[in-house]
């Protein structure tokens, strides 16, 4: 029943086949099905089993292994091996008694409570969906899936991470790297600026230059700290240009045209704008005209389909929370949903979310910074907001933060995927 990873085009043609499979779905009365085995989905599956081993947990992902986006910048710049962030989902399943199925999720019958997949229908009592992001391509730029072998965005970790890593290893004296950052909201607010710093660090070593084209009015996270790195360490080799709209891309000549002029590069890393993972659109969890799935901030239950919960990057965060689209938040909200499902099965009321976030970012090969925030649901605002002003960034980058950040990486991988 092995399904290979499919391109978007193949997925749409393959979808109808699922309805032909005539497996009788079986459920036990407390069956939780989880679509997507990344930071949100894997954590939910593991914590459900830790909290109540008698719950029947079925985890579905199209891939046998989840490759972590967090720490994938380290892979691109040769600071970690990709094997360290490649997490086999069967290992997680075996460790905790989770039923893992490698399959493409293709549809949903919310009334009969059946999830449709490429390897058959699966009945659920509660469904948790955590598909991450997909790219929201600007049709005017003609930057489509097929262009990405030569111009990888590497914002969903996997093959593109390796292609970009290999391109980075070829950077030589006199080269110019162009990094285009995505419009907010996107996955991992500090991520593009961490990547900018690591391009800067490579450029310093190789004698190259970096141009960062940002469509946003300013640096979107940990601003004073990234600004400091740009203006000191990378002062002579990195140009940061905010408020920049790309109007066209010449893929042959590697020229980017913008409202601030034309830029020619030897390596172009164009990170497209983003929207929720295609899956939530397919499953009918997105309101008309929106790009993300609407949820109730008290529970993360979909506002459109009952007994379906959406967590992680895919949620329409702006109206319901100040939380960023991060792996730490996907992990933490997975725990909140797991706790609440266990309570609901036991006939108890769910409790409102209480979570924290941290993101460590490298500003060069040896020093890091972070952001830390505690969040809680506020009934008054019907929103998940910062608790008691518990939010902050360090005064400066440090080696100590880099060492702790490395530990954080290994601990969150283990907490989520092992």
């Amino acid at each position: 029943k092995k399904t290979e990873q499919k391109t978007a085009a193949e997925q749409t043609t393959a979808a109808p086949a699922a309805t032909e499979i005539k497996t009788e779905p079986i459920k036990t009365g407390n069956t939780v099905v989880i679509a997507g085995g990344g930071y949100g989905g894997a954590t939910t599956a593991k914590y459900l089993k830790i909290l109540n081993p008698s719950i029947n947990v079925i985890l579905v992902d199209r891939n046998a292994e989840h490759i972590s986006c967090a720490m994938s910048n380290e892979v691109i710049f040769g600071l970690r091996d990709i094997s360290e962030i490649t997490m086999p989902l069967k290992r997680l399943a075996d460790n905790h008694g989770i039923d893992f199925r490698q399959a493409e999720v293709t549809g949903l019958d919310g009334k009969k409570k059946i999830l449709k997949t490429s390897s058959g229908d699966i009945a659920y009592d509660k469904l948790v969906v955590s598909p991450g992001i997909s790219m929201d391509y600007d049709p005017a730029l003609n930057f489509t899936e097929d262009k990405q072998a030569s111009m990888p965005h590497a914002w969903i970790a996997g093959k593109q991470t390796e292609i970009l890593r290999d391109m980075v290893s070829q950077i030589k004296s006199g080269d110019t790297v162009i990094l285009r950052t995505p419009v907010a909201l996107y996955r991992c607010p500090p991520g593009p600026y961490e990547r900018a710093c690591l391009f800067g660090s490579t450029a310093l070593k190789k004698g190259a230059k970096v141009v960062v084209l940002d469509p946003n009015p300013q640096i979107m996270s940990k601003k004073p700290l990234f600004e400091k790195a740009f203006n000191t360490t990378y002062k002579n080799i990195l140009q940061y240009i905010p408020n920049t709209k790309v109007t066209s891309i010449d893929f042959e000549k590697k020229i980017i045209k913008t409202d601030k002029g034309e830029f020619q590069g030897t390596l172009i890393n164009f990170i497209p704008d983003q929207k929720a993972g295609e899956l939530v659109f397919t499953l009918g969890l997105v309101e008309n005209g929106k790009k993300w799935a609407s949820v109730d901030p008290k529970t993360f239950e979909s506002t459109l389909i009952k007994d379906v919960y959406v967590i992680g990057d895919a949620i329409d965060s702006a109206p319901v929370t100040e939380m960023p689209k991060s792996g730490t938040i996907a992990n933490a909200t997975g725990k909140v949903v797991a706790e609440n499902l266990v309570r609901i099965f036991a006939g108890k009321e769910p409790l409102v979310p209480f979570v924290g976030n941290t993101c460590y970012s490298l500003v060069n090969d040896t020093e890091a910074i972070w952001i830390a925030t505690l969040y809680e649901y506020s009934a008054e605002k019907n929103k998940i907001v910062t608790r008691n002003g518990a939010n902050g960034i360090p005064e400066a980058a440090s080696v100590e933060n880099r060492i702790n950040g490395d530990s954080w990486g290994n601990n969150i991988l283990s907490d989520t995927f092992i």
Partner: protein
Amino acid sequence: QENEEGRRFGNFCSSCHGTAGAAVSDAIPSIGGQHKDYLKNSMMDMKPMVVDGKEQTPKRYSTLMKIFLKGYSESEIEAMADWYSSRPWVPTSYPLNQDLVAKGKVSKHLETCVSCHAANGNNTSDAGIPRIGGQVPTYLYNSLLEYKNDKRMTERAEEMAIVKEISDEELKALAEYFSSLK
């Protein structure tokens, strides 16, 4: 019966400290199975207190714990200390430097450490003395340097005064040795 309130307030801590507070890496400490009184003290010492509307510098240095702890009340911190202390202590599986372990084992200061922390690094008769046998290595070393360099000015820091007479190299060996205990 688990302290469910403590578990809820501390649900996200495991992304840094490991599942149920059992860390798998070397720098962020294990907190699962640590003594309850010590856990509570350590958090209260890192928490910035507000006196006359002004935020004070905490007694104990921390990189980021001070940010999170600002958001919790004392009773919430106590609930988390209760829950984490009720989890199993999992001795570190991080690969240790065996040369350092051997050096630590023959340190002339070891006897003094053991007089308070016990031979296995887990003195169960005084819950204010932290469990250090099997704690992660880089964290133990950093902690010793913090006592040495007056960055941990806690109520009981005086008891750790011996570290001021010990070289950094030897402290590193002692830290690695205590990490190796089960």
